[in-house]
């Protein structure tokens, strides 16, 4: 059961935020409101009139529109074409439609150009196109599913300005998020969902993030802050002048990583900030040995590993929490104990010589499940049947069980609920204290700033800026991520540069 006993009332002309942990049931509720899923019981009323939605078409007819977390736009069509697609009957596909788009865009300050190609637009602009698409279809109530997840702080502010415009024109916005600071700054009313049910409402004017968090998880909000520094001066991983090229579909060879150099010491967490797609995944692949380097030298604990096979690197103490755990970290249809062996098949307790040691591997899986609080009825169930957070805890437990010297953590708490998030942060801190070197890549700027000892910013395959996590703010980091600032980021920088927001290709290399 994803939802039960949900009571929510949204007033016209307000921004109503819906907050809750991952897996609390926010998305299911939204799917019901948008007609993508039918409720087993209960009623929905719009303007006092009871309605029932069989499909999204019914919802749109009632003026409810949805802006999805993942954009649904055709890259090789113009904005105009994308907007009219499927609604050709409303205003045609020509000048009438163009005029209507301009009209909506001006009315709400969206700044959408109807004849721009979608592929040329950045993430924030694409999002505005999505919003416009919904308004074009006559929506009076907009549902936005985690709209800020893909934006840098400046873009978030611009989005919130748009939302306030919409509200001022009498439209209603339902805003789904689990970022409490944002929710408090934009919402008029807040409903908190926990374990599929509404647990309370809050007035943003009289609520702090802490109180909200307590409502959300029923306990205190964890913080990624690391207290004392454990950085030593013994280098663990040295990356020197790394260059990696890739051939894109047009046959053009392009550098995806260029001139990347850094050193991570024992006990140090090096955080890499950057808008996704700027070379972070390639950097992880290169360090793991999944892609041959064009030039550059990798040194792990004094040994040159530039040409070493992935398995040898892993045996040498390289642990990985992959960005996409389903693709790179798990065998979804295999039982948990086989997943525990994955990546460490040559190491004890998983094998003795050439043979697997199933008994020891199973016993050790039980241990990981216990120590890392993986919620599962047993170790024979498939990895696919666990929730994302529990899958991640299993991966963390597995990787930490082979006394790693370097941990590559790519978005370690993505899609993980608050409780598991705190645990994973604790484990990273713990290991760091024992001399582990960590390469942390994350889109969550609070996590990056809170956990890292050193910060670097990656933009278009290069490390363009560095910053001290003790003094930097998410806003400053955000502006460096769009390429608007470089060098050493010392506070206060000219980070409020609006260029970072309006720059058409600012940082969103796709």
């Amino acid at each position, binding site marked *: 059961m994803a939802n039960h006993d949900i009571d929510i009332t949204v007033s016209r002309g307000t921004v109503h935020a819906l907050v809750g942990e991952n897996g609390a049931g926010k998305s299911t509720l939204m799917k019901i409101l948008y007609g993508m899923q039918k409720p087993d019981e209960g009623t929905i009323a719009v303007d006092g009139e009871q309605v029932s939605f069989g499909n999204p078409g019914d919802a749109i007819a009632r003026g409810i529109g949805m802006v999805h977390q993942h954009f649904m736009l055709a890259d090789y069509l113009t904005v105009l074409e994308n907007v009219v697609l499927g609604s050709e009957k409303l205003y045609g596909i020509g000048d009438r439609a163009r005029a209507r788009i301009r009209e909506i865009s001006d009315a709400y300050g969206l700044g959408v150009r109807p004849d721009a190609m979608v592929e040329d637009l950045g993430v924030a602009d694409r999002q505005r196109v999505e919003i416009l698409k919904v308004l074009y279809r006559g929506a009076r109530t907009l549902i936005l599913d985690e709209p800020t997840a893909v934006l840098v702080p400046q873009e978030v502010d611009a989005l919130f300005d748009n939302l306030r415009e919409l509200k001022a024109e009498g439209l209603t916005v339902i805003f789904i998020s689990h970022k409490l600071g944002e929710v408090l700054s934009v919402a008029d009313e807040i409903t908190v969902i926990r374990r599929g049910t509404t647990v309370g409402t809050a007035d943003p004017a009289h609520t702090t993030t802490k109180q909200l968090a307590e409502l959300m998880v029923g306990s205190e909000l964890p913080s990624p802050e690391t207290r004392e520094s454990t950085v030593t001066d013994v280098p663990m991983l040295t990356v020197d002048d790394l260059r990696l090229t890739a051939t894109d579909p047009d046959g053009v060879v392009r550098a995806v990583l260029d001139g990347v150099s850094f050193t991570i010491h024992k006990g140090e967490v090096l955080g890499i900030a950057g808008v996704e797609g700027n070379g972070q995944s390639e950097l992880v692949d290169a360090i793991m040995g999944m892609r041959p380097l064009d030039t550059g030298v990798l040194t792990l604990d004094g040994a040159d590993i530039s040409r070493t096979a992935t398995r040898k690197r892993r045996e040498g103490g390289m642990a990985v929490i992959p960005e996409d755990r389903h693709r790179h970290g798990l065998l*979804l249809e295999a039982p948990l104990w086989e997943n525990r062996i994955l990546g460490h*098949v040559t190491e004890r307790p998983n094998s003795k010589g050439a043979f697997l040691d199933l008994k020891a591997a199973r016993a050790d899986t039980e241990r990981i499940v216990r120590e890392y609080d993986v919620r599962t009825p047993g170790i024979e*169930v498939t990895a696919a049947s*666990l929730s994302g957070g529990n899958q991640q805890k299993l991966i963390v437990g597995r990787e930490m069980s082979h006394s790693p010297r370097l941990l590559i953590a790519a978005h370690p708490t993505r899609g993980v609920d608050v409780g598991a998030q705190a645990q994973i942060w604790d484990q990273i801190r713990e290991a760091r204290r024992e001399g582990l070197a960590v390469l942390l890549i994350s889109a969550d700027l609070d996590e990056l700033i809170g956990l890292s000892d050193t910060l670097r910013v990656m933009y278009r395959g290069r490390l363009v800026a560095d910053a001290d996590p003790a003094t930097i703010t998410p806003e400053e980091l955000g502006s460096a991520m769009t390429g608007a600032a470089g060098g050493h980021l010392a506070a206060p920088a000219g980070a409020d540069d609006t260029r970072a927001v309006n720059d058409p290709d600012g940082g969103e290399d796709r």
Partner: protein
Amino acid sequence: MKKFDKERLLLGIAAPLLAIVVAFLVTALVLAATGKAPFNAFGIMFDYGLKADSQVYILNKGTTYYLAGLAVAVGFRMNLFNIGVDGQYRLAAFFAAALGGALTLPGALQIPLIILTAMIVGAMWAGIAGVLKVTRGVSEVVSTIMLNAIATAIIGYLLQQGRLGHLDEAGTKISTTPLPESSRFFEFPTTPTPVWGFIVVAVVAGVAYWFALARTRFGFDLRTVGQSGSAAEASGVDVKKMVVTSMLISGAMAGLIGMPTLLNDSFEYSGDFPVGIGFTGIAIALLGRNHPVGIALGALLWAFLERGTGKLEFEGYDKEIVGVIQGVIVLCVVIAYEVVRRYGLKRQQSKVGAELAAQAARNSDQQEVSA
């Protein structure tokens, strides 16, 4: 947790059984549509198929089919579709027969040598497809099909008088030089006809297959690649090396397919050496779900169907009916497995969810009580 396992086992058995039942039903419809009595036909099949001489036939034929199923299954476990098992075993059997006919060593030396030759030839032939795949990105499906045709041509070229061919005394049949008496594999003296001793090798091969996959590091790597290439690569498996290695193993296994016939029955390679068994192997591996025991059952079923329907011809039925049954079984099995797989995954997910929710509820109850 045992509960899940039992269920999985039950689901695993239900799928092929269902497929077989559906296949018989469809066949009954086909027979009825052509104006023949279906149940009479099945009666004849079972009656004849279970006679003593039929049992021997089924075991012998099953031995060959089992090895074919294993050869294909090795590839399947890696997500490799080795359609070339057919060419691999024929080429392997041909060269092994030619070598065996040319030598007159003691049996204890010559028999292993023949078998080894077959395995090496099979492995090399499959290895070509493996190397092409990792170096040039050629799909193994395409390359192995082409290699099948090339194997046919090579055998046709070499099986001529003056090359490796040998005209028999009647002057009607070209074959390789027959193996010497000493190179004949032992037989179990069953009545009315003997069971081929090579069945022992097939059983050993099955056990080796199971052990290698389930109990060794190598097998784990192989299965990992089969389940998720990306996860395998990230976990440190050299996927390219693995592709070549498993093609070699699949080919070596394919080399064994012709051996029961060669060493227990024909003792030479001629134009009437069985063909097409590689494709039978694909069906049997699918039916047996790449599991050593499942493949054995599939191989015996296949042999039984062929034996049983062979008799139908003499009773006024069309012998092609066996093709209908086998085809429908394969089709149904593929569908049934996929349906059962998805159902099983979903079911487990919801069960795990329910169990965890129950646990959580228990915990919170206890807290409230203690509070």
